[in-house]
């Protein structure tokens, strides 16, 4: 049971990271700030989840990491979405929308 729950959360985090990378490539810190901003300061990603998730996504081939120079001249690892990652994001979004609308329907009816 805990395993399934973790998977659900993990899957959700993966989707959110992909979403954060949708427009352009960004480093780990950028992802965390981006996610916070996009959720209007509600969602704070744990670093202990972020880095393993990045690794997992890279292993899946959905994102690609490469070393670059940040705005204030720091060597940072930038992550970008691959074509497969983009496809995965669309699928995940569609699935999520279906799921959430269904849940909303049920909750709304009760």
């Amino acid at each position, binding site marked *: 049971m805990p395993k399934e729950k973790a998977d659900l959360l993990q899957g959700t985090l993966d989707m959110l990271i992909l979403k954060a990378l949708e427009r352009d490539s960004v480093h780990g*810190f950028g992802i965390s700030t981006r996610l916070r901003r996009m959720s209007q300061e509600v969602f704070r990603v744990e670093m*202990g989840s972020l880095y393993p998730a990045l690794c997992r996504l890279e292993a899946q*081939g959905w994102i690609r990491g490469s070393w670059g120079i940040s705005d204030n001249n720091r*060597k*940072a690892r930038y992550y970008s979405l691959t074509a497969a990652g983009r496809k995965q994001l669309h699928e995940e979004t569609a699935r999520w929308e279906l799921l959430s609308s269904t849940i909303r329907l049920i909750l709304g009816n009760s």
Partner: protein
Amino acid sequence: MGWLKKTAYRLQPLFRRRKIESELSDEIRTHLEMMTEANIAAGMSPEEAHYAARRQFGGVEQIKERYRDQRGIPWIEKSMGDIRYSVRQLRRSPGFAVVAILTLAMGIGVNTTAFTVLYRLPLHRLPYPEPDRLIRVFGASPQIHYKGRLSPGNFCDLRAQTTVFQEIAAAGYMDPGSLTEPGQPPQQVNIAPVSAGYLNVLGISPAMGRSFTADEEAHREREAILSNRFWINHFGADPHIVGRTIRINAVLHSIVGVMPPVLDDPLITAAPVGAWTLDCPAENSTVRDEGRYLVIGRLKPGVSLVQAQEELNAIALRLEHDYPKENAKRTFNAEQYSLVMVDNVTKRLSWLVMAVTSAVLVIVCVNLANLQLVRTTSRGREYAIRMALGSSRGRIVRQVLIESFLLSSAGGALGLLVAKWGNGVLEKYVTDYLLGVDFPINVRVMGFAFAVSAMTGVAFGAIPAWIATGADLNAALKQSARVSSSDRSRHRLRQTLIVSELALALALLAGAGYFVTGMSRLLHRDLGWQPDNLLNGFINLAPEKYGNRNDPRLRNFQERLLAQLEATPGVRNAAVSMPSPMLADDNANCEFAVEGRPAPLKGQAPQAFSINVTPGWFGAMGIRILQGRNFDDGDRLGAPRVAIISQSMATQFWPGENAVGKRIGNLDSKNPDWTEVVGVVADITGGNDFRLGRVHYDLYRPIAQNCDSWFFVTVRTETESPLVQDSVRRAVAKVEPDLAIALLTTARGAITGHMSRFFIVSQLLVELAVLGLILSAAGIYGVIANLAAERTQEIGIRMALGAQARDVLWLVLGNAIRLAAIGTVIGLALAFVLATLLAKTMPDVPGRNPLVTLCLAGLLIGVALLASWLPAQKATELNPVDALRAE
């Protein structure tokens, strides 16, 4: 990203661990710095900002650990860890590691060599394409056994009538022939006559030139295809050889091709072939009662062996109908072409060697299992602590197994070197009877070595690992240095291992003893003739020049040759025989009837080994004439037929009578062709007849009355010197310049040649048995030393209470005696089974000798006690005070 890329990504940490780790650290540091900057921008002091960032980020090391779990393949990484750990462990006990690797290398090495032999000899497959379509056709009749040759007439009809074969071909007798070239002495070379389709049937095409064609066969062209080796050795690999002519047996043949090297493999042909010549069976198509051809065929695609047999049955019936006299009850039998050329004795010997080397490997494993057991016992506390801290039993077993695997892999790698060396030695040994055979280490052999290494790793690692981790945790943790609760069962196991090792070693010794005894019996048997200073050679005269059976030119040649030989310095006397008991096979049997006795039933007539000889032959061979007279010049063609028989034959058929003057004849009651017995000679045993005590009859006839164009020359010489052989060769060339004497060997050489493989095996067995003996001595030494060490305290107490050195000695030695005794009893039982098995499967080697086995058992006990004496002696030198303090 395909699975390949994904796997590659996951495997990266195995090889680039450092880089990945440092990159991860860099990435996290950057992140922290950025967070710090953001905090400063939000108004914190730099120090505050730094700590806040740290707090927000969380535990860096935990994150790294979780990252690693995501990144790599955990079980591989853990195994790598185990391997590193094992290497460290082994480095800490280098003595054990070296001993283990060396004994493993020996064990795996000899097994790999045995496998190479097995793979090369009995398991060897001939290199023909689609071999399941290759068929042999044998002729059989009530008189001729199942696998007879076909007569030329029957072969021609079979070839004309068959529909199931894509191609069918005949191979005549391969005989040594003489090859002469202008200005050079004649050279002896094996000639294999074949019909036109022979190569097509095999599916082999010449490396150069072309095959024989049916058209050429019909026109009786004289053509030859050279073997690759002969082409290289004799013609210097001349690229323009095709089209040249050579003289084979004084007949000009044109060379149409050269065979591919694959046919030079000594396992393909019974003897190295120099040239294949085109044979025309149709030349003798009227001959129907004489089997001359081995027939092979390639089935049409989709035709089964059963269908082929049905057609052969139909053709046989037709031929019986057409030629009722010659083909009465004759049948043809189709059989899958045997892809294995090696004879049964060699096959059995190869398997025997494999079995023996496996036994050696088992001894090696038992020894190492024992050593591992000692090591894991002394590490029992370490395991107990690890398990108490939450390590699973499987994890520790895996750890120990990995250690064994490391050792066995290293041993296997070294074993391949041992095998390479062993194969080289063996190649030199066997070349006597398998000319030029090689034992290469190929992929399969390496695969075998690898598999054996893995198996030995499990074999000597698993049990100690399981036992070591099975101990009661509490007891193990509480234990003082040595006393453990599972000691009793562990000791029992170690003693069982030692007993089995000793038993196996004794079985090996007994096997070696069996062969050595057998060899000595074979070497010292009384042959009935004198094999020292005796030469034997084969002469094959061209029928074109000397005519066929009983042509006077043949006898004339023999007379001239013998005169020439006897005038040669170094030669005492010379004679001619056909065949020769030195080389002949068992098939040269002749059925006979005894005058005045009821005619024997068909198939039940007595048989004799029939030899045609010149009068000087008995003298040259050193065979005693017991009764009557020798042949003389009066016994010639046209004179009354006479025979000389062996003593066994005389006493069997005329017991208590004088056989001289009696008559024997053939089975045809209308025309028995009575032959008078004029003499009785001593029994003889053939040089390649290894069955001791077998009763057989010899029937000698004057060669003047039964002369053929091929025969053996027997020369009694002054010395064994090879110079005499040259003189004999020159003498033959003086009589007939186109002729080379073939198969010229000393009789001693021929006998040891026949025995060479038994020599090789017996030598191998002795070496392996000694290896096994040494290993088991080392094993019992280790166990007794360990037992004595574990009983130090007890011994100390006993000595303090007044036990004498002698009592202590017996205390320790008592163990060894008990183990050696049990091992010997089981070993003797094994040896008995083995001897029975060997006597059944190796009837050629009469080695059964209980006395030798008992002596070897004594040897084993002696060696075991000697090995145990050292630790026992050491125990007596204990100082009781030290012993009591020992913890």
